[in-house]
């Protein structure tokens, strides 16, 4: 059964790309629950909805489970989360080793503090074209909260910043990023110009309280009405900070790097026989409207490549499967360290985000049991691996590769609908 969708109540970030140069994430603690709720109500007015056009700046609000507790939501609400969203309740740090593949140098006890702290209650993110814009945006919010002693923790935000602009936008390894984004049925009516059908999905894949690709709607069917009303049009998010060792990655030959990604740095799909990047840069649409039906051997885009496992399309070999994520990340640079502050949005952290991280980054699709970490995002501990590159003239010798990504932290949050945020008092 289709549910009514109130796009105007969905935080804009969930359904629309952001497209800002700068972003900042603040990890706030509730000091006085009532005042903190008042603070959230006031912030709700500044969070743009998915029905609004893009403005000069943007704000988003996510809550952690300990945040819901600290805000003193009634147990009826909390228990619904305990029942339906165990990952969100337990937190990423607790599940890192078992559900995210974060072991060894990636393990959660060595993550940065905001990702560990049980006092991270609210993740307030601001976006603008410049850092000054972010600063300005946050100044008044911060002042209010400090005066009212409602929330604290403004001292140590994590900042992200796009390095280039326009077509030069990329992530630190040099690939054009954000090309492939899923589209949502009944929302993105122009989806066919942007995506193959495999990347077009039911709203329930991203929004709670709606039917998903499996036809179920547990947040509506399995929870009491006030709770389902509270969670409807909300989403879960995972904020994952990944350090990238660019120098080490660049030691690989350009052709191998492209094979590992599945694309050339300019976004063009890697095709059979190509040894260098095609001169013609594809448009976003061109770069996305393809499938793997014509590459059954992986002679062009290897099965183990990043894109062939992370956003599966119609494929001659690999059975169809949809575990889609909205990707809203930005690169970051802190001193000499660079990487990605990835922000992933979905309706089911276990089935979508965690499954991708624990399973798809490890296994080569369609090649039962063959374990090769995803070289681009597969954080792993030290050991070297080999990357299989199939070739028509006999397989190319497996390319040994190191580990180029280190997890610095992951945090799960809940993006409430603006409606719920404004009416948060009713949940207490």
């Amino acid at each position: 059964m289709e549910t009514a969708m109130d796009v105007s109540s969905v935080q804009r970030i969930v359904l629309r790309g952001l497209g800002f140069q700068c972003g900042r994430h603040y990890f706030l603690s509730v000091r006085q629950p009532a005042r903190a709720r008042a603070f959230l109500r006031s912030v709700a007015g500044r969070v743009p909805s998915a029905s609004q056009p893009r403005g000069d700046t943007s704000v988003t609000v996510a809550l952690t489970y300990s945040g819901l507790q600290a805000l003193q939501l009634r147990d009826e609400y909390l228990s619904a989360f305990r029942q339906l969203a165990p990952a969100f309740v337990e937190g990423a740090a607790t599940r890192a080793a078992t559900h995210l593949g974060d072991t060894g140098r990636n393990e959660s006890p060595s993550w940065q503090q905001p990702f560990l702290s049980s006092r991270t209650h609210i993740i307030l993110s601001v976006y603008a074209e410049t850092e000054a814009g972010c600063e300005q945006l946050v100044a008044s919010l911060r002042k209010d909260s400090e005066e009212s002693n409602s929330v604290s923790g403004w001292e140590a935000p994590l900042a992200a910043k796009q390095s280039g602009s326009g077509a030069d936008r990329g992530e630190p390894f040099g690939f054009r990023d954000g090309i492939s984004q899923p589209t949502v049925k009944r929302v993105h009516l122009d989806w066919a110009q942007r995506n193959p059908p495999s990347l077009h999905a039911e709203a329930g894949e991203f929004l709670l309280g709606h039917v998903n690709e499996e036809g179920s709607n547990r947040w509506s069917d399995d929870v009491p009405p006030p709770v389902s009303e509270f969670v409807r049009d909300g989403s879960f998010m995972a904020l994952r900070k990944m350090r990238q060792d660019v120098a080490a990655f660049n030691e690989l030959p350009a052709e191998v790097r492209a094979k590992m990604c599945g694309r050339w740095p300019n976004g063009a799909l890697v095709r059979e026989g190509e040894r260098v990047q095609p001169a013609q840069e594809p448009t976003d649409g061109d770069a996305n409207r393809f499938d793997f039906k014509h590459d059954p051997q992986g002679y062009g885009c290897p099965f183990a490549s990043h894109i062939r496992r992370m956003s599966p399309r119609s494929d001659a070999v690999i059975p169809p499967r949809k575990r889609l994520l909205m990707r809203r990340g930005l690169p970051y640079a802190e001193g000499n360290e660079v990487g990605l502050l990835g922000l992933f949005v979905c309706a089911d952290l276990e089935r979508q985000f965690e499954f991708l991280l624990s399973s798809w980054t490890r296994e080569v699709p369609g090649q039962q049991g063959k374990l090769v970490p995803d070289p681009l995002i597969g954080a792993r501990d030290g050991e070297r691996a080999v990357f299989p590159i199939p070739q028509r003239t006999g397989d190319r010798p497996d390319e040994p590769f190191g580990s180029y990504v280190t997890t610095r932290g992951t945090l799960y949050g809940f993006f409430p609908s603006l409606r719920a945020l404004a009416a948060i008092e009713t949940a207490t």
Partner: protein
Amino acid sequence: MRDSNSRPPDRGNRRQLTVLFCDVAGSSQLLESLNDENWSYALREYHASCQAIIANHDGHIAQYLGDGLLAYFGYPVAHEDNPHRAIRAALQILSQLDAMNARIQAAIAPCEASLRLRIAIHTGVVVVDEIGKHASADHIALGIVPTVAARLQQEARENTLVISEATHRLVSGAFECHSLGTFALKGLSSPQPAYEVIGESGLASRFDIGVAKGLTPYVGRERELDLLQSVWREAVTASGRVLLLDGDPGIGKSRLVHEFSRSLDASEHRMLVCRCSAYNRNSAYFPIIQLLHSLLGLQQNDPPLLKLDRIEQALLRAGRELTEAVPLIARLLSISCQGRYPEPHATPLQDKQHLHDLLVEWLRHDSTFKPIVMFVEDLHWVDPSSRELLERLSGAIADRRILLLLAFRSEFQLEWQHLAHVRRLSLGPLTRRAAESMVRNLRGERVLPADVVSRLISSTDGVPLFLEESTLMALAHGDNTAIPATLHDLLTARLDQLGPAKELAQTAATIGAEFSYEMLRAVSRLDATTLQSQVEQLVAAGLVRHDENASPPAYSFKHALIRDTAYQSLLSRARRASHQRIADVFSDQFPDIARNQPELIAHHCTEAGLTQRAVDLWQKAGLRSAERYELPEATRHLRKGLEVLASLPASAARQRQELELQSVLAGRLIATEGYGAADVERVYTRALELATELGDAPRRLQMMLGMESFHFMRSNFQTAHRLADACLVLARQLGDPARELVIHWVLGEIFFHQGDHALCETHLGECMNHYRRNFHRPRTLQDPAVMSWSYCSWTHWKTGYPDRALKTIGQATALAEELAHPFSMSVAYSFAAGLHLFRGELERAGRYADRAIELCTEHGFPVWLAFCTVVRGSVLSRQGVTAGLEQMEHGIKLWQSSGAVVTTPYYLVLLAEGLSTAGRPQDALDRLEEAQSLVDRTGERYYEAEISRVRGEILLEARGLRAALNDAEACFSRAIDISQRQGVRSLELRAVMSLTRLQMRSDPGVDVRSRLGAIYHWFTEGMDTADLVDARQLLAELVW
């Protein structure tokens, strides 16, 4: 080391030799009266009997010359007392003559013939030119020496012994002799004096000729001896004394005490000797255990029940309560109580306190019968536990007739010299004059050229031992012998003279400074007879001392330098082999050592290069010491283990073992080194690294918590915070709810100190709400719920709920008492004291502080002792007792000496208040400034508002209203500002009252009532606490 290697390289050496010549008087007549066969029998009997006696005295029969025989003393085996030995052998031959004759007569009866003997002895220098590897008299160029003896012999009366002048000079005093005048001897130009020996001199005490052979007349220490005696008189007549006797090795510390002891009337004092040893410096209570063994007359092989009986008897005599005392002593001596007594159930730390109490009281009790000299020798090698005990003892004898005599090397540092009854005596080198007199005494009638004497004195730096040894050597080698440059050479030479027994000396030295006969027997592989004679040889040579009264080890090297020399003379391969053998023998045949001194075997394994075994044993020793709360020993063993471990090849097993060692070490280090030690952090870091590498999550969590605690106490809140957060994640991953609780408390504690009461309460609440009784771990220090309730009570008071605070602290004390957990009780009482102080209830605060102090003292919780001492001091100072100030200062010092930084600002505010009351405003302001700079540096903000408020009050008091008005007003406003920001209503109330009073005085027109009223009326409880009562009165004054 069983073959030629051990032969002394004495080719071509000159050495002094004593020869004995023995002949049968009137042999031709005797031959006539006996037939050939009987004569031959008699001769064999006579030779055999002489042979046995001479061998017993380490003489060597060089030749049988018909019915005469020639024996050497001093070659091939040398002794310092060769002439004595020769004489004793001769006297014994003569004394056994009758018995021998009786045997002969019985065998060849009927016969009345009897052998009559004449014996002569002479000493002179011979040249030894040994070429072959077997010692043989053939290689001696004898020169005239045997001839002189043979000639002298002819002058002797039948059945007597005659000695030459040279021999007589060497034995003067030891034997009773009478002069026979002079004789012209063939080959010698001048007539030679000769003496007939009558027997051992009555003057020769056992000491002189036995135990400490070669003790020379005591010279040059008259002043020191006087001082020692006068300190003793003080100890007996006035009050107990500690005498610290220090000096370089060989300077004569032991000798001085020996002389002192000889000067005392044995019936009027009791001498107890504790000897520390380099080998056992890591064995807890080693000298004390030795002393007890000897006092109680315990033998190693006594059955445990017998040992227990002896302990009981001794303790009964000492008037001790047996049920408490026996298990402690038995445990110290590693004797099982055989179920006769309950095992002590106190914590190791308490046991240790009780043991020290017991031993100290025992000694004090015994001193009422007879004054006691307790002599601790070689204190520089004392193990840490004995040291602690002695320190305790030194403070407890002032009212007893006890002289605690502590002898140690000058470089050793003692920190407890400030006590009134401690005296110090430093032994320096002998004066030149005393040195000369010493050489003279040693030389006797013998001649040493002046330049030799002069060289002797200058080369030995006035150290008596060196001088004595060098002089004797010079005498033994004749005047041509160069003086050895160092004592080491000299001692090496002396060892060489031991012959085969040198190897035994080396073995003994490898065992250690002390060793028992049983150990030597087990290790040396010698047959009983050989061993016996070699041991005696070592004793006779004056290298080793035999203490008949001690339980094993009954032998010790006379001086550490001798042991070192013997030990170092071993080649490293042989040394390793010897250590290995000792380790094996100790493990297999000495279960007591294996059980009670694993560190000893660990040492031998280490030296033997048995690395893995050594590491295991060091670990065992470390754990054993840790369990017995012998923390300094524990850390030493563990460190040693780590050191040895590092030489093993890298492997996962090595890492695991290192982790074990590091984590035990980490736990002990805070106690022994304090929080300030960089080592603590280093060890934790390493342990953490290892636990992480090995994927040992529980151990890792444990180390992270330890590390957190370290940083917290150092006020490194950021780091502590980061660690605590990571701990929480780990504990959740491990599914360890008890640990999770602890971490919530830990986080609460951090926020408490940062002045964030909301988050503090959140975490403490998490801890308190999920606490279960079975989370309590009696062996760990803190109980999380007691800690949480305690901190929470202060938070409640500060945030404006004085009565709720009282209820909360009540929960803390009730739980602590219910758990009967002394640490928790100490903490809860300390917080209760602090809370009552906040509430202005001084008497109750004092009572709680007293209880806390009592508990902390009894159980040894130094950190909390510091805390409650400061609170107690503040209470006293508020009650007008001036000693309160001193107590606070003492408490703060105690706290800081542990390396702890946290909480110091709070203490400093209390101290400043006390100083101000005592009329020392500038000191008070200085303390506040110190407090503020700490706050700025560390971010410890929970008492920050009070720093400003108290500062304002002191400024007003010190400078007067007019001068201080602006500053004080700023201080109070700041205090209000801080307390409002932190939401600490009780401190805000104080600050508002301060400001109100100031404004009442300075500007009566201003409306101050509404602000005070607003904060006062905010309160809903605690209306009878001091601050609120004051506020009410103040408001009343403002009514019109």
